[in-house]
């Protein structure tokens, strides 16, 4: 029922749009204008106005179409779409944390990565970028390598969990891109991490 109403609305819109457009296309007769006015100017001004109106109509029509498609989903399908979007968000927001000068995966990290692997397997077209990061202690050079080692540990885990290696890219930022600023244990713990991005 809802569906047919909106379809009707759309029909009316499209029809009126077509009529409006054909009106606009007909050039006004020169004798319609008083002699002291410049027909050219009026025509130009009028055309701009008409085109603006057309553009507005077109926008409305498109919005309606968009709404129409959404209403096409069943409540179940809609719920699935939202869930999928939330899964994607959760995948991107997941972070794996490490101990100081360490690239091995904690139990918590493994649990997170099992979820990450599941998502990657459900979304076979996604290519993930794993960023390895370090806290600001230690030296820049060693931290670049340690960040790489961390990203590599994550990659190895995902590959063992069944994700194709060709879908995983690693990149180390060493200590160059901290998640939080600060020179204390709390900040350091938040900065020793691997993050996920999609390409």
């Amino acid at each position, binding site marked *: 029922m809802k569906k047919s109403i909106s379809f009707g609305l759309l029909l009316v819109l499209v029809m009126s749009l077509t009529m409006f457009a054909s009106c606009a296309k007909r050039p006004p007769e020169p004798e319609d204008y008083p002699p002291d006015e410049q027909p050219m100017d009026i025509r130009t001004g009028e055309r701009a106005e008409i085109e603006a109106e057309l553009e507005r109509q077109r926008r409305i029509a498109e919005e309606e179409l968009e709404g129409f498609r959404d209403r096409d989903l069943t409540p179940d399908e809609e719920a699935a779409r939202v869930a999928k979007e939330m899964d994607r968000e959760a995948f991107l927001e997941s972070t794996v944390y490490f101990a100081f000068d360490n690239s091995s995966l904690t139990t918590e990290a493994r649990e997170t990565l099992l979820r990450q692997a599941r998502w990657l397997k459900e979304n076979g077209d996604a290519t993930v970028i794993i960023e390895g990061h370090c806290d600001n202690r230690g*030296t*820049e*050079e*060693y931290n*670049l*390598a340690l960040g790489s080692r961390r990203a590599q540990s994550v990659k190895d885990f995902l590959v063992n969990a069944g994700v194709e290696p060709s879908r995983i890219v690693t*990149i*180390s930022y060493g200590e*160059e891109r901290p998640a939080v600023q600060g020179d204390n244990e709390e900040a350091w713990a938040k900065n020793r991490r691997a993050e996920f991005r999609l390409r």
Partner: protein
Amino acid sequence: MNRRTTFFSPGFFLLCLFLLFSYSGKALADYDYINISDPFHRKVPIAVTVPASLSDDAETGLLAEQAADILGRSLAFTGYFNLIDKRAFLDAPGEQGITAREVNFGNWRDVGAHLLVTGGVRLEGRVLQMEFRLFDPFRQELVFGKRYTGEASDLRRMVLRFCDEMIYRMTGDWGVFNTRIAFVSETESGKAVYISDFDGENVRRITPADDIALTPAWCPDGQRIAYTSYAADKPDIYIRYADSGENELFSNFEGLNITPAWKPDGSGLAATLSFEGDEEIYLLTPDGNVDKRLTNSWGVDVSPGFSPDGKKMAFVSGRAGSPQVYILNLETMRTRRLTFEGRYNTQPEWSPRGDRIAYSSMSDGQSDIYVINADGSGLRRLTRDSGRNESPSWSPDGNLIVFSSTRDGGSDIYVMNALGGEQRKLIDMPGNQSLPDWSPVTGQ
């Protein structure tokens, strides 16, 4: 030769120098004022006087003052000399005469000067002529004298040429006056490579401000700098000409391309790559292809640095569970561990003489610079209780070490002598500075 023209540059500049006086022909040993291998060497008291104005205008006088200032500061920078306070001087050779015949050696002995420098400045149009003489007041003789001709804008360079000559005659090694320092500084939107003169003067940025650039490493030619940059959103190695700004991508293997180090003959670089899934050190050809893999252990291998003879390579490895310095013999391909004290030893740098290695060691959130003999003996700590002291790099004469320190809050570039003495800030600029690398001697 090209090399010199590009370094000294400004266009048509021509530095003519010639021996002014027939130099007495005495062997270096006769003037053994400085023994740099003696760790307890006493500083030589030296009197640096304001050069005489040989042309008669106000500008000449200003240039003379400027020359005396640069001369004094540069000689003091080396740590070899103790400048005698001008207020103690009994004579003013700039007014009374600057030649051996005119100098009153007794008066200089009385103020304790073991060495005396006099000079003269003449400005004719745009042409600047300067002469300097080094005297020994005790022997009452001229050690050597030189005259330099150039433009007024070349003043600093002329003074430094004299300083260079002086250090060479007194130590047998070219000094640091013709060297530069590359380092990394934060910008408003990233990190960039900068270069400065040996004394922190003439700082300028040579890589884009909005990039992340790290670990600059001078090529032995003193012209090119290899560094890691995230210009393509991943760590790759680039090579940039310090003066022309010409930049080329050197290596962009999948994963890491970091910590480049030149072979001493410039015939290739070692760097850490991770394209095989593990962070290993590889030897790369001058065009960026893999020559061979140099390390083979699971875990991090990073920060290669060659011995001056190119036969050995120091590097950092996490193979023992914490980062330590190792030495790879490139002839036998055998590796031995160098550092055993401490849990976090990184950033090894071979001394120019090849006998020692400087590195940084971290414990309890503080880092300090240490020096150890290449055979693992003679460990010596150079910094203490002063925040994080990291990234040591030797001056090409082995007399000084540049490093970064957070003793003043942020991270700044400092310099000290090779025994840890006379630690002072070298560069004062906003943001944090790190990863200094001292260039080889150029242009001699």
